[in-house]
């Protein structure tokens, strides 16, 4: 009966639940879904992590490559994030070129990386003007069930913190590169940004950590990236208007979540013995 009702009038179905202060999956409005993190899961990559938020699963793999730095930025390496949303993760996506959402997500992740300054690109430079590291951060979504960006940011930061780059010496005169894979250095990660997504249902109810269903039924989504008590990004791409107090509520929620997530990531990395 309930499933029938839900498929005929999904918004009303949600409204009935929310009127009682509970969501159909049993959470209240401010409750997050359980998060699980697994680091260093892919041995062929320089760094990797798998993050699960509820049913949303994102795998991050970081591959390193050597290249010449850009002429206008001779002291900088490269960090290239890419979000992939294969048809596997949700029926919304078709095979073919990256969807709009995948492109917007890649752009968001790239902006978050630069805003937070979590990796200093100067650290990736080996010999100015000659040689620098390129870190390809591939984020692949295995199951898209809402709050994709939260999972992406956690996975990316956790993966970056496991990156160990081989020692490289470059002889400028002879233009020779010597890579010693047995001698590895950890990549310096200066900051740990954490993203939190909120959905706005019926123009006024704020749903923390929404599922895919909640996101598609809601009238707007907002993502806040927090890093060490500061805001890195407040991204609200349209949707229903929010008042200042609602925004404040979201920021406070995001701050609390950041502490919890950082603790979790630290614990996971410690258990790895690094």
């Amino acid at each position, binding site marked *: 009966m309930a499933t029938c009702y839900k498929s005929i009038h999904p918004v009303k179905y949600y409204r009935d639940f929310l009127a009682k202060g509970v969501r159909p999956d049993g959470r209240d409005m401010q409750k997050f879904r359980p998060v699980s993190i697994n680091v260093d899961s892919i041995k062929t990559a320089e760094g990797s992590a798998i993050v699960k938020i509820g049913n949303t699963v994102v795998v991050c793999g970081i591959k390193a490559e050597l290249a010449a730095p850009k002429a206008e930025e001779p002291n900088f390496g490269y960090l290239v994030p890419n979000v992939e949303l294969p048809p596997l993760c949700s029926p919304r996506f078709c095979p073919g070129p990256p969807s709009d959402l995948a492109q*917007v997500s890649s752009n968001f992740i790239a902006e978050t990386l630069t805003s937070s300054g979590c990796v200093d690109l100067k650290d990736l430079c080996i010999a100015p003007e000659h040689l620098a590291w390129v870190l390809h951060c591939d984020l692949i979504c295995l199951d898209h069930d809402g709050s994709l960006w939260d999972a992406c940011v956690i996975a990316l930061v956790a993966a970056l913190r496991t990156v160990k780059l081989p020692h490289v010496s470059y002889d400028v005169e002879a233009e020779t590169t010597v890579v010693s894979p047995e001698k590895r250095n950890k990549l310096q990660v200066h900051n740990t940004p954490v993203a939190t997504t909120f959905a706005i249902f019926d123009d006024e109810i704020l749903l923390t950590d929404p599922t895919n269903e909640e996101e598609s039924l809601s009238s707007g989504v907002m993502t806040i990236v927090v890093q060490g008590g500061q*805001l890195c990004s407040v991204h609200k791409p*349209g*949707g229903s*208007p929010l008042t*200042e107090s609602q925004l404040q509520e979201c920021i406070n929620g995001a701050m609390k979540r950041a502490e919890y997530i950082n603790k979790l990531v630290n614990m996971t990395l410690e258990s790895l013995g690094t």
Partner: protein
Amino acid sequence: MVIREHTAPGFNRPAENFGNHVISQKTMNEFYTIIDIRHNVTLQHPVALLRSDFEFCFDAVCVQRDTAVVTAVFGPAEVKPQRILIDKASVEALYRPKTGLPRVHDKMRETLIRNTCSTALLVTLHPRTSISIIVQEMQDSGGLLACAVNAACLALINSGIAMKFLVAAVSCMIDHEDNILIDPNSKQLKGSKASLTFVFDSIKKNIMACHTTGRFTQLQYEESLLKCRNGSDKIFSFYREIVRKVHQEHDRMSPTCRT
């Protein structure tokens, strides 16, 4: 019908106006200048993307200081079967950069404009149709996203498609001395710690959309929000002014049609 507003070019604005957090009525004309608002003009570049059987085309050119954007609105018109929505119009935004093909960060702008406009429009009045908003960047000297949103709103006003409210976007930046500057130019943006763009609705001045880069504290965020909100009042009154002028011109040209 062409209305031309010749106001003092923005680059003549005295430097002390920056950092002045309240924009005075006097500087408003310099702050937001519209040069052209007209009907049924064929745009060469963006229109080439679309089929020619569209019935309506309305456009607006929005110039904010040196940042210029042209927008065209088509619709409500026929929609592709895969985009059809049975209970509302499908709103799409196309963003064309000045040179080259649209890139990844242009998709972000597209999404923001599309979501903002589809919330502002009464989409349920036109089910099974499409409303396309084409934004062509002409020149970027800071605050491009804000200019694009304002241009889109002007084009929508001009199109006469029913809206719930108007939207106005204001950009600001935080410099290394923690000063907040409203509507910075690209030169000033180079020395910025963070830049923020807010979109407000015209009813309660709530936050429709927000995009930020760089790091800032919660206090700075709230302060810039407040300053941008004050700035948005000027844009809303400017919209009113423009519409009044267009109607005046219309009445002058066809006095018999006056109601």
